[in-house]
């Protein structure tokens, strides 16, 4: 087994230990980090980097980044979060970000999935269809 594979496998084991009831637990992640600090494994930095990547991916799965141009009401954010939670079958935490480049509308990102109703997306689609 290559070194890279061993590191990836170890990071996956760490991720398994960080999950509680199907969701990533901040306390468990903290515990894993402390344990690693106390007993540093071989290729400590590489293991941490691989672990970070997996944790980021896990966080992205339960996070909806809502980019918006202009104002967005708390009710809309709640509605989006509720609908996405129902769709994915897990609790989705909304994070709002203002992005003037969207011109108007919303862009919601959950892991790899993008839901775009912004004007900038409409314009770029129009541009590509005309070229």
């Amino acid at each position, binding site marked *: 087994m290559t070194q890279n594979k061993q590191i*990836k496998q170890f990071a996956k084991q760490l991720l398994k230990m960080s999950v509680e009831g199907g969701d990533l637990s901040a306390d468990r992640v903290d515990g894993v980090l402390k344990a690693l600090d106390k007993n540093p494994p071989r290729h400590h930095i590489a293991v941490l980097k691989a672990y970070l990547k997996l944790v980021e991916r896990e966080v992205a799965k339960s996070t909806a980044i809502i980019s918006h141009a202009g104002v967005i009401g708390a009710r809309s954010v709640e509605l989006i979060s509720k609908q996405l939670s129902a769709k994915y079958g897990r609790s989705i935490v909304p994070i709002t970000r203002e992005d003037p480049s969207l011109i108007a509308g*919303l862009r*919601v990102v959950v*892991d*790899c*999935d*993008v*839901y*775009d*109703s912004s004007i900038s*997306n*409409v314009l770029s*689609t*129009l541009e*590509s*269809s*005309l*070229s």
Partner: protein
Amino acid sequence: MSSVIEQIEQQIANLQTKAVASNTGKILKIGDGVAKIDGLSEVMYNEMIAFPGGTIGIALNLEEDEVGAVVLGESNHLKQGDEVKCTGTLLSVPVGNGLLGRVVDALGQPVDGKGAIESTETYPVERIAPGIIERKSVDQPLMTGIQAIDSMIPIGRGQRELIIGDRGTGKTTIAIDTIINQANINKVGIASGDPDFRPVYSIYVAIGQKNSNVARTLGVLEEKGALEYTIIVSAPAADAAANQYIAPYTGAAIGEWFMANGMDALIVYDDLSKHAAAYRQMSLILKRPSGREAYPGDVFYLHSRLLERSARVSKDHGNGSLTALPIIETLAGDLAAYIPTNVISITDGQIFLETDLFNQGIRPAVSVGLSVSRVGSAAQQKATKQVAGKIKLELAQFRELAAFAQFGSDLDAKTKAQLDRGARIVELFKQPAFNPIPIEQQVGVLWAMQNNVFDDIDVSKMVAAANSLRDFLSSRKEALLTSIREKAKIDDDLTAQLKAAVEEWKPTFA
């Protein structure tokens, strides 16, 4: 001007105003036309991926953490962190009659500067080959116009016949001759108004070739009036390996359209050695495990799934055919190398071209002993069978005897006669490039050979004699040639006519 505004307004109206869902990923690294992508959780194998700037790619490696994709076309503008999207569709290319006479790239886009291609239909580049139920046996001939092939290694419509040999032995010439001959037959057939006539359309796929070679081929086809029945798919050496990999499948998709619509098509893959090398390059960059000669493990499947798409299908499934002439370049005549053995086992026969024969001036340099057609004899015209049935055996015996005859001068009369006859057959089969001979003329000359008409002519004058007889028949006995073509077999009446014609010709040849 107002129409342009209306067009844009229409386009805006058509655009969806609701949220557009897409599955995305980010480029982790990119180089040598291959991108490693993070994300794309819903991507399918062989799915088209949209890169920024209108560039497309194909997902080839679906790994646990990332997706390996090949970029089709220019990838210099792509960088790490760029967003890519799944398209949910397989790569498709335009197909149809609108492509005839055109030169397209591996994605079916025109590269000949003749404007846009008129095509309303597209076919997926990768497709499952017709199954057993859909197929029909190969029983219609496909004339190459090359005497040595049509008489000894006949090809049928729907067959896969490999053309194999070292570099510079005339592999491409045989393929081009066949394309030219199809155009010649099409012209005669269409002009005759025969409702049962089935034209053969040709597709020439140039893989990893020099642009100058493709231009030369294009020039020859244009000069011989064959371009109107031909489509050229070009993925030259300067193209990315991914384009060279996809080009034969594009050609097959174009050919399948003819097959599915009750027409016959011929496809030439020139050549599959370079195709395998392009695939090896891609696979190594994708970090796929390598095997023999550094080719990936699925290099056999690469060619088998391509060549299996050539078939003759039954009436219920399109009633057409796709005949394939793949070309393989060998090194120092080594037929036992990896790719040659693979393709030999996939195809229904091979035409082996020998360097020694080529250098001796025997062109086409077809090696009779190593060439074979496994299904073509069922499709061979009866007339050709009648006049050329024993020729392959006689020629093979001649080659063997000629090798022995080198060691001694005292030969019995029978051996001398066999050697003499063999030498005449060899001379008879000599044929210049890009000059296919119509089947009825071939039958006429072979009939003369079978009936010992050339026996009193000096071997050195055999080529001239055969040419003279052909000219005589085409200029003076057109009705006889038409009868041979239409009847497709030699009966007593035709025998008498041929005898009379040959007797009339003989004194004219001094």
